[in-house]
């Protein structure tokens, strides 16, 4: 797992992961590259990350991938990421095509639902929490239960 201040260097990360696995005999490599879209007048998105729980989430995913003979990779930006640059890359390496295609979908969707990362629109230099696009993590509401 790799965290960077600001936009990701997509080609460098893609190429390094490729090189690292060049003799691992994986037949399929599927990266997912997330790029900030220009919309709603934003100049950038900005991210807060809570690394200890993100690392635990990622380690758990590495175990799940290993059970299917695969590995996962992830890189994410911290702080401001201007439009048309990349904030997020994840990837699966697997011996087989089907496993890779299934895992990249599950991995990216679980990332969206449960990775402890908070997103803000940056408009006129102000940072506004993207509440409408955010989702509660599994187990949310525990402390709001009546006793």
């Amino acid at each position: 797992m790799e965290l960077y201040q600001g936009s990701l260097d997509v080609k460098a990360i893609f190429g390094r992961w490729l090189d690292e696995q060049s003799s691992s005999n994986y037949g399929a490599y599927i990266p997912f590259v997330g790029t900030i879209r220009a919309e709603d007048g934003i100049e950038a998105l900005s991210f807060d990350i809570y690394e200890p729980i993100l690392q635990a989430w990622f380690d758990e995913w590495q175990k799940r991938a290993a059970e299917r003979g695969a590995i996962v990779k992830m890189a994410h930006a911290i702080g401001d990421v201007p439009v048309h640059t990349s904030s997020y890359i994840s990837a699966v390496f697997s011996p087989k095509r089907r496993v890779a295609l299934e895992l990249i979908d599950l991995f990216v969707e679980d990332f969206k639902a449960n990775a402890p990362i908070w997103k803000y629109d940056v408009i006129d230099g102000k940072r506004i929490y993207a509440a409408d696009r955010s989702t509660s993590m599994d187990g949310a509401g525990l402390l709001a239960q009546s006793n």
Partner: protein
Amino acid sequence: MIRVEFLGPIGKKPLEIDAATLREVSDLLQQNEALADWLPKCAVALNDMMINDLDTPLKAGDKITILPPVCGG
């Protein structure tokens, strides 16, 4: 003492509280009006492990983390 930290957009400083179980933490935080909108949406971690049980016992030095709705990527 138990330390309670609020992540991301909650924008609230950490609290140091006395509590023997997570249920007591819940009781205390529910009295805080600034958290009324957040608590129903927030997940909880104890010492950086996600937890789902209000009866989880606590000990001095434990860290509780409050995680609001996420949107990575």
